[in-house]
């Protein structure tokens, strides 16, 4: 067991580095891009235009309905057959952003729908365009409802980035696998990786609490 302890200590830093150079930048970049995409898709889905909302529906359905692994495969290994060859990192960011776009779109749509209709009307009545009303009146209120589910999406993403090793991106879990393969101590190393993921997620989701607290200030307790 002393042996296990030493292995644990020796592998800690390499795994953390894998997280800092792979997992975290990949998750942050993809989530940021994915959120913008998701807002657009959510608005499209809410559109009264059948074609527009149909496109959004289809996108959401395909993204949510198929495994992320296959999405990564298609972008990295499938697209070269139609002449598009992307490097691992761009491929990974595109795939994860598209993925977040599909899931987060549904969360944002639900949150927008949860704001009472009277709020849109009050916005229109003071002369706002739908865009301004959305931005100034609806989204700030929708944010309150959507922070916890979006944080689910984000934290899932942090761990899903481990799939990026399939397309040659080295991240936290890949480093752990390397160590596990060498030592054969997969249980110990996987637990260690889990611990490190957890530490990262603690930091990241402290953002959730802060955001929630901030957004709750205008609500009766």
């Amino acid at each position, binding site marked *: 067991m002393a042996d296990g302890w030493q292995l644990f200590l020796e592998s800690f830093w390499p795994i953390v580095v894998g997280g800092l150079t792979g997992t975290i930048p990949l998750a942050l970049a993809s989530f940021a891009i994915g959120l913008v995409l998701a807002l657009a898709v959510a608005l499209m889905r809410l559109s009264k235009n059948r074609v527009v909302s149909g496109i959004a529906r289809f996108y959401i359905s395909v993204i949510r309905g198929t495994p992320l692994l296959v999405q990564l495969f298609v972008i990295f290994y499938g697209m070269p057959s139609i002449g598009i060859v992307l490097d691992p990192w761009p491929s990974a960011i595109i795939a994860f952003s598209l993925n977040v776009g599909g899931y987060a779109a549904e969360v944002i749509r639900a949150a927008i729908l949860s704001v009472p209709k*009277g*709020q849109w*009307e*009050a916005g*229109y*009545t*003071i*002369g*706002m*365009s*739908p*865009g*301004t009303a959305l*931005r*100034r*009146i609806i989204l*700030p*209120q929708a944010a309150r409802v959507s922070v916890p589910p979006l944080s689910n999406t984000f934290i899932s993403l942090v761990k899903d980035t481990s799939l990026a090793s399939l397309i040659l991106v080295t991240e936290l879990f890949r480093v752990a696998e390397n160590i596990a393969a060498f030592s054969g101590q997969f249980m110990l190393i996987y637990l260690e990786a889990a611990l490190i993921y957890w530490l990262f997620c603690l930091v990241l989701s402290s953002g959730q609490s802060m955001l929630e607290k901030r*957004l709750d*200030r*205008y*609500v*009766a307790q």
Partner: protein
Amino acid sequence: MSRSDPNNSGDPGRRDDERRADVPGGDPLAPSETPDDSVLLTARGIRKSFGDNEVLRSIDLEVRRGEVVVLIGPSGSGKTTVLRSLNGLETPDAGTIDFEGGPSLDFAAPIAKASRFALRDRSAMVFQQHNLFPHMTVIENVIEGPVRVQRVPKPQAIAEASALLDRVGLADKRDAYPFELSGGQQQRVGIVRALALKPRLLLFDEPTSALDPELVGEVLQVIKELADEGWTMVVVTHELGFARQAADEVLFMDGGVVVERGAPAQIFTKPTEERTRRFLDRILRPLDEDGSDSPDST
């Protein structure tokens, strides 16, 4: 804050300049144009059904510049629906609305979004249910329209808003959130929010319903002053005393039609319709057995 804000310029129906043209630092309660008695808004044959329920069955309405039109009538008679139609929040099934210098809408055909927005742009509404923005403080609620939509400089908007809040006794609630306000306080904020826009047409939906009687007097006094200053407005109210004094025209609605219309003196003293008479009767002596209501001290 620049005029090229993409969120604003993206809307073809937006013409801020037409809406508010006041001098910076001027009296916040001055209307944006001088009354001249020309027709500002004409609605003809407005119909609206919700499912099988025919809520408006051909409503005609004419509002002249500087005029105060008061809508009265029993609960469910369609008063709110009329206001909402005038403001473009409800799309009537049929009828026409003409707004002077702006859109001319015929609801027989589908209406372009831009025209609905133009309609809305020219008026401001006080909702029966307040609809304050819960995530903004009182002052933020009030300056949102002037600053974001009309591009009034923020310090000026705040000064004007503060003056208005002061006037309705809410100076000390400036930085409170709506959930921290009593019902009457919320309603006053709703009124101030509309006034701050200085719209061409003010639509009030029972602006005094949640107010205590003392404030009712206060708020009606403000509205009456606005009327005197030449603001144009359509008011749904149950305060007949107010209607009598401030209205240029009173419309009595029931069951989705205008049963009777005319000058307040005529409606309140010589209603021609039996239905109006009954309504007024019931109102003016609700539980009264004796008629003297004033305290000795006056």
